[in-house]
């Protein structure tokens, strides 16, 4: 089984999510959230206005849309893969969200995953990624991608693999607050 950025985000929240969902096959309760549905439609609305703007603002030489990439461990769909003028590449992800002066870790994690996939598939370095917040007038935010960020993601992917392949029961997250409204709190051993 190959994993996706969502798996990594869940694992970082609490490793036991991976265990309950993919070893014991107990699904999470996820309600059909209106905003999530709107976000899915977003990718179908091709954003013409962004093209020229991107070329000027960040110096894009080429762009590849909707790239479904995979390596041995991870798979994911990148909204846009950009080739920049300095020969590096960058993932760009559209978010149906407002920018509120901070970038959530989940968004960063997603970009790091894409960065890893791009490096392996296109054979180019990735130094930064971009997020477009469609509900804040398409505000463009740059996120730096470092080697250590990628190493963390790679380590996570291997640990997730270990849990799934060996039925390994991991330690829960150290943040006790997360247990309060966890979907698995009734079956999770403290």
């Amino acid at each position: 089984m190959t994993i996706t950025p969502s798996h990594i985000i869940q694992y970082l929240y609490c490793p036991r999510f991976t265990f309950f969902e993919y070893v014991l096959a107990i699904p999470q309760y996820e309600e059909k959230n209106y905003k999530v549905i709107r976000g899915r439609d977003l990718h179908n609305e091709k954003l013409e206005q962004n093209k020229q703007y991107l070329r000027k603002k960040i110096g894009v030489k080429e762009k590849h849309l909707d790239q479904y990439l995979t390596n041995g461990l991870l798979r994911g769909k990148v909204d846009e893969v950009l080739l920049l003028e300095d020969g590096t590449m960058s993932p760009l992800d559209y978010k149906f969200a407002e920018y509120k002066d901070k970038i959530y870790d989940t968004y960063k994690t997603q970009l790091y995953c894409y960065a890893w996939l791009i490096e392996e598939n296109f054979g180019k370095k990735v130094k930064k990624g971009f997020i477009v917040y469609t509900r804040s007038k398409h505000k463009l935010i740059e996120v730096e991608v470092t080697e250590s960020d990628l190493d963390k993601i790679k380590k996570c992917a291997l640990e997730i693999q270990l849990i799934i392949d060996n039925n390994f029961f991991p330690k829960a997250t150290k943040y006790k607050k997360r247990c309060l409204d966890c979907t698995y709190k009734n079956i999770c051993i403290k």
Partner: protein
Amino acid sequence: MITWVLYDIKNDKARTKAAKLCKQAGLYRVQYSVFLGTVDSHEKDTLSLQLEEQIDESQDKVYIFTMSKNELKNASLLGQAFDKKMVTDEIRALFF
């Protein structure tokens, strides 16, 4: 937060849908096109996006106001008005 939703929507179908969305968000219908109740910021955001989808922006209007409990206490209500305790969910049961 206590939230007011007021609208003028011309199209019957869209107006019915808007009322339904407000009720689904847990608001009380205090007048035909005025809703009031307590929602958190995420619920309010979702509702405003849903209403935005329903309306014709060239002719309809929707107002969404928020208000504190104190401000609602200071409001004067005349005639066949709603029960302040009811819309702020202070009354949990209507009969015993």
